[in-house]
């Protein structure tokens, strides 16, 4: 089987999986207790988006460290692609969280520690792209943004995992509790859908990331041919 055929098969498998997750989220999982209306169903999308954002920032760190070691332009492209996807999924997590906040607390924005910390994280990674745009020289841009990415990543665990747990928050109990233990006390059907959605979003991230890297590879090859 050719690589293109495997890719097409995986693409359609992911499509079917995503449809099943959507159906499961609205027709299979029961309503959550203690939440207004059906607002809690957004958890099946909000949590995986936040997870993928963290995963993307981890990939950004690894690619940046690799660039600092190898000075390979493709590693720089990998880092930029991961940061871009991390930013997109952070925005999606913020938007879905904000919708949930509006249903639960009648306001899209409540200056909750978790809302503020995610915005600070968004600004930190937006600055990564501002830095990339500000430096015209490719090698210098790649070096500076790789170093910045390492520093940016240091703030991520604090902003995502520590700060929201230090202060009192409106945010519902998280899956990983303040003590660092897993708290998967939810209906088994809800858990199945949540885990299914985590797998689906991770697959979507892998697909997007692979496409971005392939695109960067083509662009780099073209630029190399033009230079030669």
């Amino acid at each position: 089987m050719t690589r293109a055929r495997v890719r097409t098969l995986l693409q359609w498998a992911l499509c079917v999986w995503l449809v099943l997750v959507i159906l499961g989220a609205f027709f299979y999982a029961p309503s959550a207790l203690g939440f207004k209306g059906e607002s809690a169903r957004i958890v099946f999308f909000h949590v995986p988006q936040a997870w993928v954002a963290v995963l993307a920032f981890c990939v950004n760190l690894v690619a940046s460290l690799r660039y600092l070691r190898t000075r390979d332009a493709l590693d720089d492209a990998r880092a930029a692609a991961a940061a871009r996807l991390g930013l997109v999924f952070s925005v999606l997590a913020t938007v879905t969280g904000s919708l949930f906040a509006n249903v639960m607390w009648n306001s899209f924005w409540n200056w909750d520690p978790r809302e503020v910390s995610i915005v600070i994280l968004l600004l930190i990674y937006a600055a990564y792209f501002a830095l990339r745009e500000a430096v015209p020289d490719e090698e210098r841009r790649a070096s500076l943004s790789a170093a910045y990415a390492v520093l940016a990543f240091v703030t991520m665990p604090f902003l995502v995992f520590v700060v929201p747990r230090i202060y009192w928050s409106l945010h519902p109990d998280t899956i990983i509790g303040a003590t660092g233990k897993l708290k998967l006390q939810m209906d088994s059907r809800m858990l199945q859908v949540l885990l299914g959605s985590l797998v689906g979003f991770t697959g979507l991230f892998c697909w997007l990331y692979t496409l971005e890297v392939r695109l960067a590879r083509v662009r780099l090859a073209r630029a190399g041919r033009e230079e030669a």
Partner: protein
Amino acid sequence: MPGAESLVWVAAVTVVIWLGLFAYCVGLARRVRRLEDES
């Protein structure tokens, strides 16, 4: 805005996000394949 508490509202937002991301992926895959074939 439709009734914020309704299932329809939550469903619409989440489905739009899924479909938007998936459609973007399909479009990007086609573009990448075309560029790879050209080069």
